[in-house]
């Protein structure tokens, strides 16, 4: 047993040495890997859907298509879970979804209270499920995570931003805007920046993590060019994919959790 471990370690070291000696991929280009992986023939150029009031209606094809895939998968997951849902004998999938739902509901109730939080359950649940599925989609070969496009994450963050105002005004009315003038009115620029920073950080955090994960996957795939690099690039790629699963869940959870926190801050009375 101990000998097997030793041999494996030695092999890994050898692979590492070989990798460094041969030079990490000579004519290496992420663009080329990306192009090779695009077996679906999804165009790189945006779709032009015409102009509305001086505004170009352009869409990123890959983002849109994989968003549809992620939406379909999320819906499929939920339909399957809802079909297996039963009071006495829920299916395994239904149990899992129920647990996730219950957990997120607990988080919302904890920070907003059941009264104010009841309307947020769907939003938070959808955030978590959709972002998780979208993130994990990035690990599927030839597919892309919709969240690796900054427009998706900004779209989601803007929804949280809007919800902050909706919930703040709904539960505090005009008093909600008072927090811009506190503790002193001349803090107004700072509080405004603070408010704007929330969706910005939300969007960039998710986007950065997912884009980084994707670029790393492509780069590690690009390293697989020769015998030595197959060993090095492949191992690293596998490890990175495993880490990618972890990051996908963590980032989905962080986005969800921070959305709850921001909305609860907008609603909370002690400002």
């Amino acid at each position: 047993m101990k000998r097997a471990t030793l041999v494996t370690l030695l092999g890994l070291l050898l692979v590492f040495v070989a990798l460094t000696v041969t030079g990490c991929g000579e004519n290496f280009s992420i663009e080329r890997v990306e192009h090779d992986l695009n077996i679906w023939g999804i165009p790189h150029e945006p779709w032009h859907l015409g102009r509305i009031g001086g505004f170009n209606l352009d869409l990123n094809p890959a983002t849109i298509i994989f968003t549809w895939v992620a939406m379909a998968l999320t819906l499929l997951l939920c339909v399957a879970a809802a079909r297996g849902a039963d009071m006495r004998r829920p299916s395994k999938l239904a149990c899992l979804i129920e647990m996730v739902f219950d957990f997120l509901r607990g988080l919302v109730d904890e920070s907003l209270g059941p009264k104010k939080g009841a309307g947020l359950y769907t939003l938070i649940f959808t955030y978590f499920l959709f972002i998780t599925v979208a993130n994990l989609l990035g690990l599927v070969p030839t597919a892309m995570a919709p969240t690796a496009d900054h427009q998706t994450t900004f779209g989601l963050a803007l929804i949280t931003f809007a919800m902050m105002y909706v919930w703040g005004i709904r539960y505090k009315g005009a008093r909600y805007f008072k927090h811009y003038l506190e503790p002193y009115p001349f803090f107004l620029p700072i509080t405004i920046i603070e408010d704007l920073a929330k969706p910005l950080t939300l969007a960039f955090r998710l986007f950065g993590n997912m884009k980084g994960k994707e670029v790393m996957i492509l780069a590690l795939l690009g390293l697989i060019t020769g015998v030595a690099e197959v060993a090095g690039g492949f191992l690293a790629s596998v490890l990175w994919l495993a880490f990618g699963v972890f990051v996908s869940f963590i980032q989905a959870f962080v986005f969800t959790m921070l959305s709850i926190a921001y909305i609860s801050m907008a609603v909370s009375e002690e400002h």
Partner: protein
Amino acid sequence: MELKFNATILAQMVHFILLLILLRLVAYKPILRILEERQKYIAANIEAAEQQRLEAERIREQFEAEMRRAREKADEIIQQATRAGEEQARQIIAQAREEATRLKESALQEIQMERERAMAELKEQVANLSVLVAGRILKEAITMDTQRRLVRDFIDEAARYVQ
């Protein structure tokens, strides 16, 4: 890499809201319904269990009270029986004693009567014998009646003396 925005951001927001609405219809409502149902079911079960526990407690208390009452009653019955038994024993003994006394008295009476009868008979026999003997001896010296009277007087005197 510069950040460029186009209509994709709007499309993504619309997509998300669409997904939100669909999930609300497909998943949120059934799951929440199931969760609430289960919660209600569990609450009802707990309620029922509590109720049953109280009921069991009540029945137990009732049962214990009944047991206590039964035991008291049994004690009372035993005591009563003991008392009755003692009473009866006393009665039987008293009766027996009375009976014995009565028997003794009747026996004594009988003995007395028997003795008196025997005495009378004896008197008769002795008188007759004496008369016979005296008559033989005196040979018609005195009349029979006189003799008998004399002898009876003598015997009476003797009997009084004996008694």
